[in-house]
């Protein structure tokens, strides 16, 4: 198991390095550059370039950047010149993370429960409802779900606030909006997986042992059915993360999304790089956790690696 984790860890670090390198050079290939505003005179722009080190060879800049990263320094924003990228991430990430975690917990827990109920009551009303939720959820984009939630719960029925992020009741609608797609996805996969596992021979073995229905469902069916859900958790986390951009803007939440999108439009190199590297490491970390989790849950994955 330790060896398995070690391998995953090495792979994670390698992908992070690759990500940083690729993004670093890609950013420079984008049309335009940070200091092109008409208000800047040639002289000022040149000074700025010098200040940010753009007049040095690219490869030198690259190693400087890596060096700074290792010290945890993403550098100054080139647009909000009085702020470091670290400051901006520090101010906005807590909102995004809070929203993302709420949505993930909601999506996974409710998704699993719906999938399980649906499979256990196959063909009954509850199954029908769950399948419907899954179809709607997987076919409707985030911003429509968000807008519909705002319209009904916020405006029509006046139950919940529709904007900003000031307390628990403010988190409800955006979390649901962000979770909906993933929730539908998880429930769909779990339902299919439950129905497949129940056909397996070992379920018959469990019945022949005289185990209770509860025990068979929990220990034999759900425990094995959950595996495919864990494999899609990685992409799922990615989906939720990118979903935050859209949901944050619909619900006017002061998260990272706005800055990320703006930074690209502004050619704000250090912001683009910083945010991407930050998001990227976060995703890679999530995938690492999922991989380890998978090894814990499925003994076959660990085979030959201990």
């Amino acid at each position, binding site marked *: 198991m330790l060896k398995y984790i070690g391998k995953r860890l090495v792979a994670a670090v390698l992908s992070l390095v690759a990500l940083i390198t690729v993004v670093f050079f890609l950013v420079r290939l984008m049309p335009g550059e940070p200091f092109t505003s008409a208000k800047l005179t040639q002289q000022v722009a040149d000074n700025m370039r010098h200040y940010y080190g753009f007049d040095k060879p690219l490869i030198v800049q690259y190693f400087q950047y890596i060096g700074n990263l290792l010290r945890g320094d993403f550098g100054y924003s080139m647009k909000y010149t009085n702020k470091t990228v670290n400051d901006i991430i520090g101010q906005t990430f807590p909102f995004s993370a809070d929203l993302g975690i709420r949505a993930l917990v909601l999506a996974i827990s409710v998704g699993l429960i719906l999938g399980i109920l649906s499979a256990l009551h196959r063909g009954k009303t509850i199954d029908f409802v769950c399948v419907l939720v899954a179809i709607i959820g997987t076919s409707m984009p985030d911003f429509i779900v968000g807008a519909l939630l705002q319209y009904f719960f916020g405006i029509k029925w006046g139950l919940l606030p529709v904007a900003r992020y000031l307390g628990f009741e403010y988190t409800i609608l955006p979390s649901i909006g962000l979770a909906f797609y993933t929730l539908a996805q998880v429930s769909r996969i779990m339902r299919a997986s439950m129905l497949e596992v129940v056909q397996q021979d*070992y379920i018959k*073995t469990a*019945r022949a042992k*005289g*185990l*209770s229905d509860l025990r068979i469902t929990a220990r034999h069916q759900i425990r094995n059915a959950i595996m495919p859900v864990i494999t899609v958790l990685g992409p799922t986390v990615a989906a939720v993360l990118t979903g935050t951009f859209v949901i944050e803007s619909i619900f006017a939440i002061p998260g990272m999304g706005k800055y990320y999108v703006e930074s690209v439009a502004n050619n704000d190199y250090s912001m683009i790089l910083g945010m991407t590297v930050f998001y990227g490491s976060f995703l890679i970390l999530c995938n690492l956790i999922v991989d380890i989790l998978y090894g814990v849950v499925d003994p076959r994955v660990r085979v030959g690696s201990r």
Partner: protein
Amino acid sequence: MSEREKILEIRNLVFSFRTYGGVVHAVRDVSFDVRKGEILGIVGESGCGKSVTAQCILRLNPEPPGFFENGEILYAGQDVLKMKKKELRNFRTREVGFVFQDPMTSLNPTMRIGAQIEEVFLSRTDVTKSEVKEKALNILRLVGISDVERRYRQYPHELSGGMKQRIMIAIALVSEPSVIICDEPTTSLDVTIEAQILDLLKELRERLGTSVIMITHDLGVIAKMCDRVVVMYGGKVVETGDIREIFYETAHPYTQGLLKSIARLDMDKTDVLTPIEGTPPDLFSPPEGCPFAARCDRAMAVCQRYMPFESRLSEEHMTRCWLQHELAKGI
């Protein structure tokens, strides 16, 4: 052998499945009994209802789509079909073990071997945790597994096919049931492993006195293992008898056909193997008369129209064939 006490009696069992294509009459009026300490073979071609019959004993067929139309399954005077949920679970846990055909898929891949064996005792309050572990280790030794402490902690994927089937047998036997049902336990194993597993089952029968129901389509397995045989065809029992009667006083043309289709040691070079022509009847609408009529080279007009009666040829030997009717004698 015939004096042995009956421990399980299956009487007039009729079991069908409701499917989209219609009702599958999988088991059609099957009766036989199982005696203490014997190995009873159930033999027949694929799809003749062997597994469904065996699973009826523990009510393992999915209900629905399956349903009992008739019959009783008596164990110690109690009808399994009338048992309440709790009683049925108890019956499965204590009285009858089941070994399935494919050991590769019959063990839970995410559970350790030890846990899968001990699970049998989960709802029992009469044994302590340490006793349960002791029982699990003992049964592993008994089914011929070495290094039991290590195996106990392993997962199924770490074991070979033959080893897994030993584990399945251990699970079936750990609560010391009086009957174990083995549904083609060696079909998916290679020949040397098959021989080992069959030897193991025989030896366990000797040591524990457990009755064994041995389901197979292989008469070689029957010859090697069984005391008595039930031959099934088209959801019906067509012949039963002790092993000698089935092999040397074969009464039913289907059994004769089966025998002709296997290689035997006492064969001359000139003897040829002849498979039975044709296919088993469609169980959606089984024929009114003898199920074998379409393939039987001795079929008479009556065979197509009427189901043959059971004819008793000796105390143990029974067959369902019009040839045994007194008017047909000598044909």
